[in-house]
């Protein structure tokens, strides 16, 4: 953080002020990041900024990183991306799905600049895509949840019914029911990525309807806080949220972009960069699990660790057949795994998830 607080302005408190870099241009290479939220969201954008800091750490004085926060998807993002491309950035990371088409458009105009778009599916000679297989982490979480639940109801706070979120819900359902066939998943959609109050209220509603484990695919730690105060379990999202819920957090699914960002930045600088699609999970370390809660019994920890190891060595696939869709029709036959193409566009629930997806 280049600017330290101005808390003293309101007389609240004096906090040691940090120094900041000067705006003077130098010969170093520039690497750009476009964020959809503020770096202070403690969720999605926060983790991407940690990745940016890893680049700074790894490449030091050779590079200068710049970022723009809270960029709205749509025309604003295209302007920001273009401005970065036009001002000598070697490589630009655009970190939200909604930046996909703007990134492609700008990339066409700047063939010598490399672009990295997170969570999209369109590529070009100078546009790579990358995303995490977060569902792998969620599958491990599902095993723990299936064992830990007493009410057999898992509550899930969803943001928007997009494939990414649906995939996570299904992974949890499959895993939980593989160890406890009576488990059901109740989902509430809050229709926002980020509204602490509403996310917390959704968690409360789920708990009041019998859920004793709260999972979330929204950005704030509010659902964990609710779980903590209501004495049920929860799982952190995007970053380790343990200090928000030291008793309740079973584990957390952590997005870790550090390694990828450093690799790709280096590649762009030394000329070895090539357009590619990266969809990496636990094995590559792009998805991590926070330390397991001490309260989890040893056999469950072992089950979780084995599952994680299995996914990493390829012996376990979260979407391995046979299993059924919510309506009872078979989704994939025994001995087969659901293909990536189907996973990417998943818009149906598996058995055990309650409620209906909007069509």
């Amino acid at each position, binding site marked *: *953080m*280049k*600017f330290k607080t*101005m808390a003293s302005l309101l007389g609240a408190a004096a906090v040691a002020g940090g*120094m*900041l*870099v*000067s*705006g003077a241009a130098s010969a170093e290479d520039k690497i*750009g990041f476009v964020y959809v939220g*503020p*770096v202070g969201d403690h969720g999605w954008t926060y983790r991407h900024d940690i990745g940016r800091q890893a680049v700074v750490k790894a490449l030091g004085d050779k590079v200068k990183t*710049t*970022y*723009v*926060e*809270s*960029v*709205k*998807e*749509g*025309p*604003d993002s*295209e*302007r*920001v991306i*273009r*401005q*970065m491309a*036009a*001002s000598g950035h070697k490589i630009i990371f655009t970190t939200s*799905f*909604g930046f996909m*088409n703007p990134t492609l458009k700008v990339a066409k105009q700047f063939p010598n600049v490399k672009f990295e778009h997170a969570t999209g*599916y369109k590529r070009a000679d100078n546009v790579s895509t990358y995303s995490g297989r977060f569902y792998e982490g969620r599958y491990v979480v599902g095993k723990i949840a299936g064992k830990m639940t007493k009410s057999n109801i898992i509550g899930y706070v969803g943001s*928007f*019914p*997009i*494939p990414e979120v649906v995939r996570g819900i299904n992974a949890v359902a499959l895993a939980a029911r593989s160890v406890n066939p009576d488990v059901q998943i109740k989902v509430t959609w809050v*229709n926002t990525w980020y509204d602490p109050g509403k996310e917390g209220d959704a968690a409360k509603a789920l708990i009041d309807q019998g859920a004793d484990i709260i999972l979330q695919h929204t950005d704030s730690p509010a659902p964990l806080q609710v779980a903590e105060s209501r004495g049920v379990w929860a799982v952190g999202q995007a970053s380790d949220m343990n200090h928000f819920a030291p008793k309740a957090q079973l584990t957390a699914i952590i997005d870790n972009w550090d390694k990828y960002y450093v690799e790709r930045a280096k590649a762009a600088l030394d000329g070895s960069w090539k357009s590619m699609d990266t969809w990496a999970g636990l094995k590559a370390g792009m998805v991590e699990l926070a330390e397991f809660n001490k309260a989890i019994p040893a056999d469950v920890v072992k089950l979780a660790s084995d599952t994680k190891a299995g996914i990493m060595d390829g012996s376990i696939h979260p979407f391995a057949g046979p299993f059924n869709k919510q309506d009872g029709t078979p989704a994939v036959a025994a001995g087969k795994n659901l293909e990536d193409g189907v996973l*990417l*566009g*998943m*818009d149906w629930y598996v058995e055990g998830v309650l409620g209906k997806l*909007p*069509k």
Partner: protein
Amino acid sequence: MVYITPILALTLTILTGMLLFSFLGVDPVEALRNFFIVPINNQYGATELLVKATPLILCAIGLSVGFRANVWNIGAEGQLTVGAIFGGALFVYFPETESVFMLPAMILLGAIGGALWAAIPAFLKTRFNANEILTSLMLVYVATLLLSLLVHGPFRDPDGYNFPESKIFTDSATMPILLEGTRLHFGSIIALLAVLTTWIMLAKTLIGFQVKVIGTAPKAGAYAGFSQKKIIWFSLLFGGAMAGLAGISEVSGPVGQLLPSISPGYGFTAIIVAFLGRLHPVGIIFAGLLMALTYLGGETAQINLGMPVAVTGVFQGMVLFYLLACDVFVNYRFQLNRFGKAA
């Protein structure tokens, strides 16, 4: 005096800005340069200013008519959204059409959609006396959720892996680009025409006269036999249509498809623009450009100086404070005039 106002505001902004940036340890001259000059010191930047200002001006010009008549439509954001839905729906259902009438039809539908959404507060106000501040605001949330519902369901691109966005609009459904190599599009012409039309309407037509009279002297308006209800209907429908045009010119302009979020709050920011421009058509053009510049400047300062978005937000608020505070001179001038007349 009215011409000195912006200059004074500018001077004060520069002075305080220098203090703020020095306090934060940024070179103040460099910071101000990045805010106000760098974003528009080339052709592309200048066109971007117009691109960003277009929806602001369109929404603000529509709102200004209502504000003049004391009709408090604060739901332009919702009307913009519904305009985009209506216009965009035509493409979603007829994506293959290459007719030259495609775009004009979409634009027309956009205006109709916005007007229809604004007709709800108008109806509730004239029929049930329901305050339009509340109804128009609540309908913003409803419109946003409606768009979300549509792009997550029926409107989404069948080849888009079920991501919530429509197909990308084809050329026949896209606003023509005015200047090759930039994003300056036909929507800016629409905005300009809207401003001219409004200006003429306010200055030359009976309805424009009625709007002004009802706003400044409702009793006089009543004596003259002007219908309050008619003015409410007119200003809401007009404001809604303008916001709807803003919506369709965004989605078939720089956005190029329907997305869950198509506007970063243009409908709300336009309220500031309307008043900053003193509800005058020409003033609104300048205010829209200035407001757009503060956004562009914020982005530039973030890229070039590593300034966090929080600082750019504080600075933007400050600029607005000064511009608004300088109204004091305008108001005092009116005072003097009043005394002059009274004497």
